[in-house]
C-alpha cells in the first residue's frame, strides 16, 4: 500500500488529480494543509473529480483528511459527511508506518 499526501486545494492546483491518476487499488490518500479543501468536492463542485473519487472508493482506495488542518479551515463537519475520514497527527504517523511507501504530492 502506498500512502499519498496532497497539500494543495483542488480548486487552485492539479495536485489532487495528478495524485488520483497514479493511485492503485488499496492505496490511501491523505489531504493535508490546503489539500483538505478536497473534502468539499461534490457532484455540483468539481463533478469529474467527485466521480473519480467515487470510482476509487469502489476499488478500496482509502481517503483521509488531517483533522487539525481541517479544523483550522472549518471543514471538519463537511469532511465527516464526505468520504474523507478525519485523522489526528498520531493516526497520520500510524498510516505512514502501515504504508510500504509514501508519495508526497505538492
Amino acid at each position, binding site marked *: 500500500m502506498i500512502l499519498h499526501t496532497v497539500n*494543495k486545494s483542488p480548486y487552485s492546483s492539479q495536485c489532487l488529480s495528478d495524485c488520483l491518476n497514479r493511485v492503485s487499488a488499496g492505496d490511501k490518500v491523505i489531504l493535508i494543509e490546503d489539500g483538505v479543501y478536497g473534502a468539499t468536492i461534490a457532484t455540483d463542485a468539481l463533478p469529474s473529480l467527485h466521480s473519480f473519487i467515487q470510482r476509487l472508493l469502489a476499488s478500496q482506495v482509502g481517503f483521509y483528511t488531517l483533522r487539525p488542518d481541517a479544523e483550522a479551515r472549518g471543514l471538519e463537519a463537511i469532511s465527516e459527511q464526505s468520504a474523507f475520514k478525519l485523522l489526528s497527527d498520531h493516526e497520520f*504517523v500510524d498510516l*505512514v*508506518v502501515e*504504508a510500504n511507501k509514501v508519495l*508526497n504530492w505538492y
Partner: protein
Amino acid sequence: MGHQLICDLRLLTSMKFTIVILGAPYTDEAAESAFRFTQAALEKNHQIYRLFFYHDGVHNASSLITLPQDEIQPAQRWANLIAQYDLEAIVCIASSLRRGLLNETEAKRFSKPASNLTPGFKLAGLGDLVDAAQQSDRLITFGPTS
C-alpha cells in the same frame, strides 16, 4: 485475519523516519506540518533518523528571524526539539549559501559580516539526504505551499 495481524504488529514497531522540509516559515505551511508530524512520531516512540531542510526550508534555521515575543519562534522551536531528543538536523549547504544562511566557517570563508545558523542545525551536502533515504524505514517530504 493474518493481514490484520501483520498491520497491528507493524504499529507496535519503532521505525526510523527521515523528514524533509522544503518550505520557509510564513510563506509555506510545510515546516508547521513537519514539526507536528515529527512531534507525533517521537511521542509514538519512533526514531527520527534525520531532519533535512532543503530549498526554501533552510530559512527555518535562521537565528536572525525576529518576531514579537508572544509568537512562535520557528528556529528556536526546532532547536528545542532537536536538543530534547538529540536529533540530527541537516540544512543543505548549497540551498543555504544561495539564501544567505551561513554558519561561522562559511561566513569567514566568504568574508561575510555575520553568520545566522541556529545552534543545533548543521550544514551538509545532499549526500546526507541520499544516505537518509537508504537508512530510514520511511521518508516523508513536506513540500511548499506555493
